[in-house]
């Protein structure tokens, strides 16, 4: 290990590289965490492992791209008054407003899907529900693919590929953006859980029937869980579309649809029902991935090309061997 570190140090200097890697890990971790929270909320609220998250996330990113690129809105008879002028990069506030709009649309998509496909399945086995979401994913795929097929969908990131220089390391603004987004999401979710709806959702997660008996509108809780879940994975997808992340400022047909699967180890590591778990799991997994990519690069021929992609799964396997319910998941009490 030592000579690898030394090798890295030789070229760009140890510290800037380390810092850069760390920031990248944190940024990627933020995105994983936000998407992980999206999974967790849906799971907590409705006991569904949402395999459709990939499709929903990409749809969310596409909504964003449509809002910031096209004045006309699909399926709606009016145009988006907040859209930036065609051909120009929007200002940051305008972009953010459009971001909120895109998230609202994504949330509506999530709610509609829940109402159509999940609500009728209440009480069915976990895996039937999971396969339902797989069906949704399959059905969403072609729409997403079709929408991106004519041209790459730009996300019109106001800060593009700009970066700050800090202690010799280049820190892309997008990375910071992702971290800020994650912090905001985490804080607002925490606030949400303190609100009435949040308490209701926790009650539903604990015991649906008891919650219903207490007068909680379980249907609405389901709806909100899916809305929130969809918006959160969309946030992750939009921020992952930026700058030095692989899609390079676009909604990518190659990368976005599989993004959600990369989050699975995160939620398993954090525990399916733990929001802080998703946060820590995201940061841990992403750091493992990024640091392995950076510092084990010399050993690619031994580890195989693209080894860093499977680092999350290996970390997950090791953790689960020790703790079968993840690091933060609540252990299921097994009754006969």
């Amino acid at each position, binding site marked *: 290990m030592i000579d690898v570190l030394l090798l890295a140090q030789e070229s760009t200097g140890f510290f800037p590289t380390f810092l850069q890697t760390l920031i990248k890990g944190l940024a990627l971790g933020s995105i994983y965490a936000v998407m992980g929270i999206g999974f967790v909320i849906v799971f907590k609220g409705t006991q569904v492992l949402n395999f459709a998250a990939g499709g929903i996330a990409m749809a969310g990113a596409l909504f964003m791209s449509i809002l910031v690129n096209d004045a006309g809105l699909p399926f709606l008879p009016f145009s988006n008054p907040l859209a930036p002028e065609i051909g120009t990069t929007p200002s940051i506030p305008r972009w953010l407003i459009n971001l909120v709009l895109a998230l609202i649309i994504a949330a509506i998509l999530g709610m509609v899907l829940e109402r159509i496909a999940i609500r009728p399945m209440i009480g069915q086995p976990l895996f039937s529900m999971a396969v339902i979401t797989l069906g949704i994913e399959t059905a969403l795929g072609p729409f997403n693919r079709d929408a991106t097929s004519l*041209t790459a969908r730009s996300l019109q990131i106001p800060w593009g590929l700009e970066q700050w220089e800090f202690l010799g390391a280049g820190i892309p603004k997008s990375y910071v953006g992702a971290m800020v987004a994650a912090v905001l999401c985490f804080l607002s979710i925490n606030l949400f859980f303190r609100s009435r709806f949040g308490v209701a959702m926790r009650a539903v997660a604990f015991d649906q029937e008891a919650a219903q008996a207490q007068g909680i509108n379980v249907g609405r809780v389901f709806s909100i869980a899916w809305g929130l879940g969809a918006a959160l994975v969309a946030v992750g997808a939009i921020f992952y579309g930026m700058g030095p*992340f*692989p*899609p*390079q400022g676009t909604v990518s047909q*190659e990368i976005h649809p599989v993004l959600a699967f990369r989050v699975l180890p995160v939620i398993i590591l954090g525990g399916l029902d733990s929001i802080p778990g998703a946060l820590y799991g995201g940061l841990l997994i992403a750091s493992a991935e990024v640091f392995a990519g950076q510092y084990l*690069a010399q050993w690619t021929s031994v580890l195989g*090309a693209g080894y860093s992609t499977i680092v999350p799964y290996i970390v997950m396997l090791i953790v689960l061997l020790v703790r079968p319910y993840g690091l933060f998941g609540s252990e299921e009490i097994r009754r006969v």
Partner: protein
Amino acid sequence: MKFKRLLALFMALGLVASACGSSETDDGAAGESESSATTEATAEEETTTTAAPAEAEEPAAEIATDFGVTDDTIKVGLNADLSGPFASLVAEIVEGQTVYWEVVNANGGIAGRQVEMVVLDSGYATDKGIENYLTLAAESDEGVAMISENTGSPITAAIAEDAKDDDILVIPLSWASLWADPDIGPNILEKGTNYCIESMNGISFLADLVTENGDTPKLAILSRPGEYGADGFAGAALAAELLDIEVVYAAEGEVAGDDRTAVVTQLVNSGANIVWTTLTPGETADIFGNAVAQGFEAQWSGNQPSFNYLAHLGGDLAESFDQYWWQSGYTVPWNGNDSEGMQDLVAAFTELRPDNNLSDVYAIGWMEGLMVQTVLEQAAANGDMTRAGIVAASQEVTVDFKGLGPNQSWAGSYNDSVVRESYMFDADATAFDIQPVSSGTGSTGLFIEKGPFVSEIVADYVFDGPCI
């Protein structure tokens, strides 16, 4: 950056009535025949019409046929990826071929027969592709005379042996040099310049560029796993050896997975000033973008599929690409020259698909059409339009692409027939402007920098089989 035509769902920027893949060519063609009988179209189709009228009047019975050819139609099959990862690209290629046949059919077809396309979707899945092949190659009414496009090396490799057994002509949509393998047989008709030669030409070009600037070329080669990556890498490695260039980083098949940190790190640390990629557009963008962001400066180029003007010139990296990227290729970009072929193509699209956006890849489909027409006409002239007859005919012809790309024949040894020319394009982000065909303006942002040219190392090299 215009995104007018995207998901504008009810603007219904629909397409002109086009033939339905399997059964409606006649209707479509009939509908178009009057309007398309314009002067340009007929005038350009000189080669077609010289052969066709004579054949058309004769009773077709004199031509031997087996499957896919009747007295009035010729069925041509396409095993295309229309729902998989390459759907957007392939859809436009198929569109190119569709328009080509509309024009040909309007002018009387081939040997008095209308050409009917049977399009099946493989989704780039091998099993589906094999199934499609079996349908197309069926020795029944469902079968086709030949397969004018078979998307992807994996599927082509999977069906190659069957195709040889069935003696059916297949034009793969894949530029790997694999098809030179004598085991695979003459019926897999390699089309255009293969990745191996493209790499050699491209690296020669980049090396010259660096040398002109007074630097010593230091090469980094990035390739993805799979035979596409392997073929491109083999050519690049060969070029480095022949040109005596130092390879400072060789990531052979190492660009895999979604995290490319390792590759970027090593690339940036290698100190290369030439980078050759055999990647997908997404991989290219990620590595290129991250490397550039880390201050890495080099002359970049790569095999044609590495680059996608829509993704690369339409995204945030446009300026960097403009600055560092040279695109390699073997077909002329939209309106890239004023050759006869390009004029035909543009005219036909302006006439038949005015609402379509301009695209570089229509030319590929168009060229497929030219190939098929040439081969079929030869077969008709030979009086043998059986599948075997078509395969035989393919060995006798030289296809004139009329300036859309280097001409090609399959006669003689592989070394004799292999296409050695390729182009280098300059990427111009400012010129990038995708417009509907009918507007007559707009550009994909690619302009011919050099070519068609054959680098010295390619010209002298003896190819006796696949590079890999």
